[in-house]
């Protein structure tokens, strides 16, 4: 309804009322005019109050946060034209509000996704200032997600290698550097990648590569070790071959040299066999835990091997053989898993004890069922023992407490690595307990699930 109709109606009512009252003193025409004017005035006042209400509502809206949907409700006590105006405004506001909420939800989702990535992300503006970063970026570069917004990245990430990369705009090559949070105990190496996006903006991605570099270093060390281990017997072998070729030797000497050559060849053979065992352990699927083997049988084979080995050593050294004791009782139950692997682990443990103790020492093997259902194989010797600084590294490949002696006795440096691998695959734990002069005790504890009577 038009506002003028309203004005007209008010003027008419005013004129009607006033005309009746004031026509006597003023005359009919003046009375009607005064009444009309008074009606118009009342209308004006009313209009003003309604408009004011609307304005108050709008200015209150300006101050409330955008997310507050309740504040959008339009004021009550409005009539006709103003009512319509307010309803339109409210509808438009609600539409915008809904769109905004949707947008905000999408942005939040996006930010959550960026936060969830395991890599550091920093967004840089055209002047290389930090616009936004995720938690991993904070961890990688020791930054503060709130305080450091707006900082120049080169002010906080000052490594010259990075700054040079940023200046040269190296977008394809990753930049490798040490994190500012890196400590000697906990090193942290990072690989950084710069990606341009939008209008002259940059995305700085960071990834921790400490473990990758460590694995690579391990790989290199392993290859170096293997080459070294193979080279030593090969050199000896080559030397003997040359001697046999060039020197006239009598039969006895020849036999002696050939025997030594055989020993070196055997050494290489065991090394290659151990390496193959290790790589098999790494490659093959987890052992089949539905296969049960009697522990008695495993230990019997192990005992036979150990005695033969001890005898060989005693013969070579022309000394008394080791005293080896295995458990005597018949009922030891069964163990789940790959019998061949377990056999190799047990044998390695016992051989290890024989190899690293002087001839005539005592080696005791126990099998013990624990209260919680697990079972422990213990190999105890009364040899020279192991110094504490070696204990944690014993199971590393090619780690040797006394390199010369171990190789002499035919050790490859891989025995305990194989043991550790096998035990890990069977869910067992290896514990080494020793002190210099007090012998050594190696115990492998198998979980309850892998043992039955």
């Amino acid at each position, binding site marked *: 309804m038009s506002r003028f109709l309203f004005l007209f109606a008010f003027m008419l009512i005013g004129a009607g009322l006033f005309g009746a009252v004031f026509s006597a003193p003023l005359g009919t025409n003046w009375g009607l005019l005064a009444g009309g004017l008074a009606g118009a005035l009342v209308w004006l006042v009313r209009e003003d109050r309604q408009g004011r209400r609307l304005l108050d509502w709008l200015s209150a809206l300006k101050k409330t946060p955008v997310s507050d949907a309740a504040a959008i409700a339009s004021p009550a006590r409005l009539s006709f034209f103003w009512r319509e105006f307010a309803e339109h405004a409210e509808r438009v506001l609600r539409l915008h509000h809904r769109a905004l909420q949707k947008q905000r939800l999408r942005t939040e989702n996006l930010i959550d996704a960026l936060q969830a990535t395991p890599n550091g992300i920093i967004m840089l503006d055209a002047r290389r200032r930090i616009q936004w970063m995720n938690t991993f970026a904070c961890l990688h570069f020791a930054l503060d997600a709130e305080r450091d917004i707006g900082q*120049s990245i080169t*002010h906080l990430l*000052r*490594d010259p290698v990075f*700054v040079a990369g940023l200046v040269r705009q190296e977008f394809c090559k990753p930049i490798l550097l040490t994190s500012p949070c890196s400590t*000697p105990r906990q090193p942290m190496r990072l690989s950084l990648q710069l990606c341009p996006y939008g209008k002259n903006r940059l995305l700085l991605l960071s990834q921790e590569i400490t473990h990758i570099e460590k694995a690579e270093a391990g790989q290199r060390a392993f290859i170096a070790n293997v080459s070294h281990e193979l080279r030593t017997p090969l050199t000896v072998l080559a030397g003997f071959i040359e001697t046999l070729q060039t020197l006239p030797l009598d039969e006895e000497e020849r036999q002696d040299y050939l025997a030594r050559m055989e020993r070196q060849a055997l050494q290489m053979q065991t090394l290659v066999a151990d390496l193959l065992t290790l790589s098999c352990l790494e490659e093959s699927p987890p052992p089949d835990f539905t296969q049960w083997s009697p522990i008695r049988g495993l230990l019997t084979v192990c005992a036979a091997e150990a005695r033969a080995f001890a005898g060989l050593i005693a013969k070579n050294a022309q000394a008394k053989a080791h005293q080896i004791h295995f458990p005597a009782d018949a009922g030891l139950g069964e163990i789940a898993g790959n019998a061949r692997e377990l056999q190799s682990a047990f044998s390695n443990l016992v051989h290890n004890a024989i190899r690293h103790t002087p001839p005539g020492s005592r080696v005791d093997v126990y099998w013990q069922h624990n209260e919680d259902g697990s079972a422990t194989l213990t190999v105890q010797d009364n040899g020279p023992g192991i110094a504490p600084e070696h204990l944690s590294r014993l199971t590393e490949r090619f780690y040797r407490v006394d390199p010369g002696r171990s190789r002499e006795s035919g050790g490859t440096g891989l025995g305990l690595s194989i043991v550790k691998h096998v035990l890990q695959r069977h869910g067992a734990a290896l514990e080494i307990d020793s002190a210099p002069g007090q012998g050594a005790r190696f115990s492998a504890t198998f979980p309850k699930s892998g043992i039955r009577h």
Partner: protein
Amino acid sequence: MNEKHLSSQFDSDLNNISSQLMAMGGLVETQVHRAIAALAGFSATLAAEVIETDDQVDNMEVTIDRALTSIIALRQPTARDLRLLLAISKITTNLERVGDETHKIARMVKSIVESGGARNMPIGDLRVATDLAADLIHRALDAFARLDVSAAIVIMKEDDLIDREFKGFTRKLITYMVEDPRAISDSLNLLFLAKAVERIGDHAKNIAEFIIYIVKGTDVRHSSLTQVETALQEP
């Protein structure tokens, strides 16, 4: 460093010079790390690298000083801007000295490697002090970038730790010298080395003091920590 001036050119000048200072700081930090690695691993190649790069640090100091002179002459800054520029000048000097100390350490490592001596000396005991020094320099530069007064105060407090380490190390060296007079020359070398490390910590502390000067306008040099803290509590 984010306050706006009427002249945006001035803003970008200030920003540029801060960036140059931070770049110099980054280089000096790497120098410190390299010198420490050279010392820990007795690496003559790393030591040689440190000695070679020292010229670069010196050049950066000259460049920053020249830029500072021209900004002060052109813009005639006042208040906080003037303090910032003055502090940058002093911090540059301090950073250059840190560079000199790393140079000194590298030379010492080189001579130790070449002479073959000093290997059975207690170099491992320096490790704590060297790592602390590197950390302090790093945090001092971070605090400058953020103009973070509370971090600056922490740095000033921690410098005492290095001083204590240095004293302990000196005492240890004295016992070596008393036990075996032949160890005296090696011990003296190590003492100079330890002194260089201790000086790096001092320079970090100086940088921290300039941060307080920029932000608060109070000169806290040569005053005790309690004095500093009370001075900062005043509005």
